[in-house]
Structures are given as structure tokens and as C-alpha cells.
């Protein structure tokens, strides 16, 4: 039986509750558990930055087990950027240490009356004063909290951006790892919570240790045999994608005005390896080691990354070829606690507004110095940074041109132009947390050929494949495994790990059903707040303006037919809302009842 730690920051009340077998079997942990708690406890219309919003840190049934890529944790809340339910997860070493405290999840309520941090260790939980660290950057925060708690403690924290409730702020751990998206850092800041430090010594128990070892070995073997996980990611990191996406004409350039960047090679994974790389870095229990410890030559600036999304957002999206400038923007984001995708994309949006004369004094495409300065201003909510801190949609709306914001449901799009990758377009549009590539990473099949290559320009069959990837991803996010495991591992591997770890005879089909349940639960959470088909869309540019050049030239996203098919296969109404019978089928009858009694959808 697991345990959930409850902390009411307003009342300074600390309590615990059991993780029920039903919660564990129907929702696993991580993202699923977060959705279950949030749906049950958070009524419609709660302001994301109000004390009533909840903030849930969770691990999964495999965290700390040593299963490949299992060293992660997830955060679930209602996002101030999108207004949707939102989970974000992060690697590094915090997740395993949280699990070792004996808690499967920590649910935060309320708002502390002054800056605070939480210290969880040896069955004790303390809420401590954080006046002296409020305002510190993330690196100094980690160092200070560790010096005050324990040198082996692992800490998750916000930087100055989260304190200032920047809507694109992140939670950082291990100085360079982020639960990056959706403004989860702002929610933590709104609760006056600077950090959570954890240290424990409880080893998770495996139901069948011998068989679990076999399952873990088979998963590791799969990872060691897949070309992406054995070669591409270890050698070049995620930025290996820069040249690949550019080659197919789907590297969004100049804020998605083009799909091909002439200077892509200057910002590629290959160039990062040549010019910035110091060494490879791995999260807990990971053999892929896609992380890059880097240093800007001739300076004392060092850190980790830039990853693909970051080098794209500050590079091609902003028309910047200065790799050192991009690395500096990346380091600053980690220090302020900012989401690199949304920060880069919002700056790119400002660049387009400036170029078209709708924003005076804004940054210009290609100006690395202005871009880096914008990151500082966003982190400090100073000058133009105060506008940019609200994300691209609010910025573009304020200046009368919402079409310049490349977002879905308010979340900035990652570095894949769906005009050249139709299924990815559908996955962006139907993601419950907005434009996220990780909900259903169709790039894997449509570009990388994992598990096999499907035609990226075709729409046939894409609804079905998107649903499969979304559902299995929801399940693995709830086991809190890294998405990259999915390049090599299949549903059978995941089920084998889970059944041997828990003793519950989960099958691969069970896992897919669990994912489907979680996806439906998130969907009705959003639906009761008014989200529907109108929100399952893409920026008009992607639907109406063909790409002007490259190997995806003359294409737009044919979204509507895919969306109709998607809703039909999901068992949702034409407006994108799960029907009562669908909810019953996925064992969410209770949620359906709650909706029927309290809401009109």
C-alpha cells in the first residue's frame, strides 16, 4: 500500500493518506494519479494561480526500481498558461530520492503566508522559511537548500521567474533538469513555495524481484539495439534532430514562416558536439545518456544543453545561428527557471510582431544579443519582458495579431512543423495540455521510422496511430518513464516490468486501456472548463499557408478529416467530448456521474 503526503501551506497542516489499490491499478502513478486527484478535488473554474489550485508531485510504480529510464517525477496542476489540466515531468535524480522518502505523491494545497520551502526526510516533513533564498537563481537555491538540509538531498525548485509568476516558468532540479512546460513554476510561486528537498532510504520492493530483473534486462537490451537509443541520442543528444528536421523541410524557421533553415548546420547536434560538448550526462537509471554537459568556449559559462527543442526555439525559430548565444539563452532559462520552448517561441513571436511593425522596440529576427536580453527581461518581468512573460498568445493578442502566436490551447508549439508531418499535427491539436510533442510523439513513426516508417504526408490511419501513441504515452507517463524508452521498448516490455514490479498481472492491452482512461479523464477535466473542438486546432498559418520551400513545400495540415476520424475512434462527440458510454467503458463511470450532476457540457 502506497502513501500520499498532503501539505496545506495555508494552514501549515501536514497529513498523510493511503494510495488506494484502486488508484494504483486504474491510474498507476505520476500523470495518471495526478489527473485522478485533480479531477476529484479541483472544482471547475479554480484560478490556476489561486491558493485553491493543487500542485501534485508524483513518482510511479517503477521509480527507484532501476528499470530503464525510471528516474523521473511528474508534476500535475491546472496550468496558468493554458487553463487545462497539466502535467510536466523531469529527469535527473530528484524522482528517485522522492520515492525513497516513502511517499508516492505529495499534494500541495493553499498558499504559504511567506516564502517557504519543504524538507522531507526520515519520515519527517518540515515547512521552512525561505525568505533568504527568495530571489536567488536556481543554482544558488540548490546550493543553499542542500547546505541547510543534507548534502545528499535532492531538490526541486523555482527560480526568479516562478517567483514572479511568469506564465512560462518551470520547476528545475539538479540545476539543469526541468519540469518545463505550462507554467508549473508559476503555480509553485503562487503558493510562495521556493523548493522541495527530499532524502530517503527506503528501497522500493519488487513483487517478483527475479522476474523483474529479467524484464529490466530485456528492456535494456531493446534500448541497446535500437538505432535511436544506441547511437543517435548518445552520440549527438536530442539535437541530432536539427539536421533531420531541416532535411525534410519541417524545421520551423522564423516563427513557423518557413520550414527550412539555411544555417541549420551551425546549430545542429553535430556542431554542438564539436564546439560545446564537455561530456554526456545521464538521468537516474538511464543508459541512453542524451544529456549534454556543455561550456561556452572562452568563457566561464557552462551548464547542460541546449537540447533539440531549445536549440530550435532560440535558433531556427528566432533566425539565430549564433550557437554560443543560444547556449547562453539556454543557461539563463535554467537559472531563471524558464521553459526554453515557450521562452524561445514567445521571443520568436515578438520578432515577427516587430518585423511586421506591430511591436515597436521589440527584438529582430537573427539578433542573438537582443534574444538573450529578452530572456533576462522575462525572468525579471522587466520592460518588454513583462509582456513576454505572459507567453506568446497573450502577447500577440495584446498587439492585435493573435495569428502570430504559434500555439495550441495557449501552449507554444515545439520544433516540428506539422505541415510536413500530418500525424504530428493531429497529435498537437488533440493534446490535452496544448501543443505538446510528447503526448503522442508521431515524429517517431513519421520521421524516425520507429517502430516503422509511415508516410508523413498521408492522413489515412493517422488518427488511429495517434490514439495508440497517446494512450501508451499516458500509461508510461504514469509509470513515469522517459519518452525516449518508447523508441526501443514496446507495450509488452512495459507490461512485463509493471507486472513483475507490482505483482498485478497487467498485460500490454491493460496498459493501453489505462492510458485511454487517463486521456479521457484529462479530456473531461478540460471539457467541464469549456474546452472543446474549437480548442483542438492549430494556428491558422499551419492550416492555410503552404510551406514556401524545402522537402515539405506546398503542404498544409489537413486537420479536419483527421479530427473527425479521431473523435469517432475515441468515442467522443463531434465536439470532442467523451460520451457517457465511452466514460463507462473506460471505467470512469464515477467521473461521468460527477459531470452529469454538476456541470453542463
Amino acid at each position, binding site marked *: 500500500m502506497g502513501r500520499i503526503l498532503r501539505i496545506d501551506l495555508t494552514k501549515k497542516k501536514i497529513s498523510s493518506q493511503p494510495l488506494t489499490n484502486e488508484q494504483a491499478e486504474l491510474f498507476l502513478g505520476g500523470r495518471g494519479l495526478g489527473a485522478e486527484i485533480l479531477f476529484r478535488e479541483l472544482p471547475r473554474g479554480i484560478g490556476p494561480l489561486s491558493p485553491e489550485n493543487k500542485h501534485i508531485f508524483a513518482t510511479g510504480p517503477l521509480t527507484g526500481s532501476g528499470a530503464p529510464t525510471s528516474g523521473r517525477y511528474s508534476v500535475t496542476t491546472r496550468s496558468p498558461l493554458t487553463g487545462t489540466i497539466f502535467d510536466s515531468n523531469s529527469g535527473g535524480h530528484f524522482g528517485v530520492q522522492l520515492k525513497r522518502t516513502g511517499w508516492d505523491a505529495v499534494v500541495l494545497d493553499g498558499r504559504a503566508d511567506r516564502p517557504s520551502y519543504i524538507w522531507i526526510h526520515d519520515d519527517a516533513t518540515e515547512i521552512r522559511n525561505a525568505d533568504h533564498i527568495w530571489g536567488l537563481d536556481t543554482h544558488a537555491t540548490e546550493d543553499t537548500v542542500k547546505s541547510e538540509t543534507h548534502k545528499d538531498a535532492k531538490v526541486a525548485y523555482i527560480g526568479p521567474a516562478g517567483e514572479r509568476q511568469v506564465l512560462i516558468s518551470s520547476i528545475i532540479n539538479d540545476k539543469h533538469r526541468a519540469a518545463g512546460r505550462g507554467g508549473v513554476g508559476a503555480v509553485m510561486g503562487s503558493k510562495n513555495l521556493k523548493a522541495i528537498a527530499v532524502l530517503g532510504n527506503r528501497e522500493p520492493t519488487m513483487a517478483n524481484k527475479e522476474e523483474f530483473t529479467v524484464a529490466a534486462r530485456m528492456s535494456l537490451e*531493446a534500448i541497446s539495439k535500437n538505432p535511436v537509443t544506441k547511437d543517435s541520442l548518445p552520440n549527438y543528444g536530442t539535437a541530432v534532430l536539427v539536421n533531420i528536421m531541416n532535411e525534410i523541410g519541417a524545421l520551423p524557421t522564423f516563427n513557423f514562416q518557413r520550414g527550412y533553415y539555411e544555417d541549420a548546420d551551425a546549430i545542429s547536434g553535430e556542431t554542438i558536439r564539436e564546439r560545446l560538448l564537455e561530456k554526456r550526462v545521464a538521468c537516474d537509471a538511464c543508459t541512453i545518456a542524451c544529456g549534454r554537459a556543455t561550456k561556452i568556449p572562452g568563457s566561464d559559462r557552462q551548464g547542460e544543453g541546449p537540447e533539440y527543442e531549445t536549440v530550435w526555439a532560440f535558433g531556427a525559430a528566432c533566425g539565430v545561428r549564433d550557437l554560443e548565444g543560444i547556449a547562453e539563452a539556454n543557461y539563463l532559462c535554467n537559472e531563471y527557471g524558464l521553459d526554453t520552448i515557450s521562452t524561445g517561441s514567445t521571443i520568436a513571436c515578438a520578432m515577427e510582431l516587430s518585423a511586421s511593425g506591430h511591436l515597436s522596440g521589440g527584438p529582430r529576427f537573427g539578433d542573438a544579443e537582443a534574444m538573450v536580453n529578452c530572456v533576462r527581461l522575462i525572468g525579471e518581468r522587466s520592460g518588454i519582458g513583462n509582456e513576454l512573460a505572459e507567453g506568446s498568445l497573450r502577447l500577440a493578442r495584446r498587439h492585435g495579431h493573435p495569428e502570430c502566436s504559434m500555439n495550441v490551447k495557449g501552449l507554444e508549439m515545439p520544433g516540428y512543423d506539422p505541415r510536413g508531418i500530418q500525424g504530428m499535427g493531429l497529435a498537437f491539436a488533440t493534446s490535452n495540455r496544448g501543443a505538446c510533442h510528447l503526448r503522442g510523439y508521431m515524429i517517431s513513426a513519421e520521421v524516425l521510422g520507429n517502430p516503422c516508417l*509511415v*508516410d508523413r504526408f498521408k492522413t489515412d490511419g493517422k488518427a*488511429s496511430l495517434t490514439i*495508440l501513441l497517446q494512450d501508451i504515452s499516458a500509461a508510461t507517463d504514469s509509470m513515469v518513464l522517459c519518452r525516449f524508452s518508447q523508441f526501443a521498448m514496446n507495450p*509488452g516490455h512495459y507490461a512485463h516490468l509493471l507486472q513483475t514490479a507490482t505483482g498485478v498481472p497487467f498485460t500490454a492491452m491493460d496498459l493501453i486501456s489505462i492510458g485511454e482512461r487517463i486521456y479521457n479523464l484529462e479530456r473531461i477535466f478540460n471539457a467541464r472548463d469549456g474546452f472543446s473542438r474549437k480548442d483542438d486546432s492549430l494556428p491558422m498559418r499551419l492550416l492555410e499557408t503552404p510551406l514556401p520551400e524545402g522537402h515539405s513545400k506546398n503542404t498544409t495540415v489537413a486537420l479536419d478529416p483527421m479530427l473527425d476520424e479521431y473523435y469517432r475512434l475515441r468515442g467522443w462527440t463531434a465536439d470532442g467530448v467523451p460520451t457517457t458510454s465511452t466514460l463507462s467503458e473506460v471505467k470512469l463511470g464515477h467521473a461521468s456521474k460527477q459531470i452529469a450532476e454538476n456541470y453542463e457540457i
Partner: protein
Amino acid sequence: MRIPAQSLREVAERLDEEQMAGLIDHTELKPHVLRKKIRSLCDEADAHRFATVCINSWWVREASQYLKSKSSRVGVASVVGFPLGQMSTESKAFETSDAIANGATEVDMVINVGAIRDMTVSSGDEGRQMRTLVRDDIGAVVKKADGAPVKVILETGYLTDEEIVQACRISEEAGAAFVKTSTGFGPMGAYPAHLKLMRDWVGDRLGVKAAGGVTNFLEAIRSIYAAANSPSLLRPDRFRIGTSNGINIINSLNWARYDGSWFVEEVPCKICPSNYVTKQPLEVQTVYVKKCKTCPDNAYRKFKDF
């Protein structure tokens, strides 16, 4: 060549991971591998129940003894005359005897590609002489294989359709057990059109082996559709896949269980050898390009990026 999505689904439905594994020659032919890698190849083949490990002849004794020590049922396929096939018949025969003596249970030999091509461009006696030379070259290996199945690697990327057919006929005459597409070191790997052509000519009398570029379940299933699309052919003595990605194929096949949408009819040019001619000798390339121009699916070529 067109392969309907439904046909691919039907092939996939008939296959499970274990059956697929039994069709795979788990291959490692790079020149720089270490003993540790060969042992690990054997361990993997044993664990997944692949048909054989396919290795260079130097490693045959090592692999054979190691597999024997594990009481494994996995066979050892030794390549011979690899990868160019341009050595004397005597040297191929000796390499075969040596491999068999060291424990090889199967032999994958490279045909004398140049002689096959000479045969088709020469007329009269010269052509007949070349034909005899190729047949004797294979025959000598078959003889020294001492009953172990011999697979003849045609290196189809160097050959026209007519030459592939001739090579199949000669291989059969010489007593080979299989014809095999490629070495993986030549101008192209296994394409469905070549596999189908080979199967059409050898019927159910010989096996066909797809080798080169088969990396995931979809490519494996396309190969099966082209060369082993009936229960009587879908068995290890009639069809094989030679690949260093066997584990990835087995792992990726699991995904096919949960959705039929992986299987779509591919744009024919994408799986056609005529679309991948850049590494071919010019005169062979010319034949492929000419074939492309008269192909009923040529309309796809109008779209540069189809």
C-alpha cells in the same frame, strides 16, 4: 511493386514473435568486431531463438564452440567469398571446408558477380563458359559444404532482372539451397521486387533470403509478402531474413498487435530498386532507369518528394 495494406496486415496476423525469430539469421559481419561481440551475438540468438548467427568464417569456431557449450539449437552460418565473391573457386571451396570443419551448419557464399554479368553480355561459347564457371563455382562450395545448406548471395544491386533470373537458375542447378539478395556491402539491400522475382523463379524448390536494409517489422513483413506469402514457404528452410537488427524487428513487431494502421500501401517508388540506383555501375543503372520510365506507376515520379 504495389503491396496492398490489407495483404501486409494478413501477413502480420499470421506471425508471432517466435515464428519471426525463427526466420532470422542474426548477423554480424563487420571486420572490427571483438570476441565479446561474437559471444554476445550468440547469447542474443540463443535467447531469442533466431535461426542462426551469420558471421565471418574466422569466427565460426568461436561461435560454434560457444553455442555448443550453451547447448543451444542456434546454427552457425559462415559467409564465404565475402563480400565481393571475386576470388578463385578453389579458395571459396577451401574456405567452405574450413568453416564446416570448424562447426558451420550453413554457408552463405557470394556469387561471382562479374562472371554472371560477363555471361549475359557475351554470346556463344564465351557466354556458355561463363555460365559453367559460375555453376562450378557454386557447385564446389556445395560439395565442400557436405550437406549443409548453401545460400548463394546474388548481390542483386549489381544485376539486371535478366541476370537475377539467370543467377537463380544456375544456383539451383548447382545444388544451392537458397538464393539471397545482398551482402549488405553492395549498392543496395533487399527490395520486394527482387525478392518476388527470385521467388517466382525458384518456386518452392529453394529458399529465398532477404538481406540488407531490413531493420524493422514492416520491412520484414514486406519481404515476407514478396518471397514467402504462403504457409508452405513461411518456414526456416524456405525463407530467411539476414539482419543485424533482429532484436529490433522482434521488438517492433509487438507494436503491430495494437493497431493495423502501421500497414499502409507504400508509394511504389519508395520500395522500388529503380529509385536507388546511385551506387550501381552505369550500365546497370541505365537498365533500371529505363525500367522506371516504362513502369505503370511512373506517375509518382512527377512528384519530386513523393
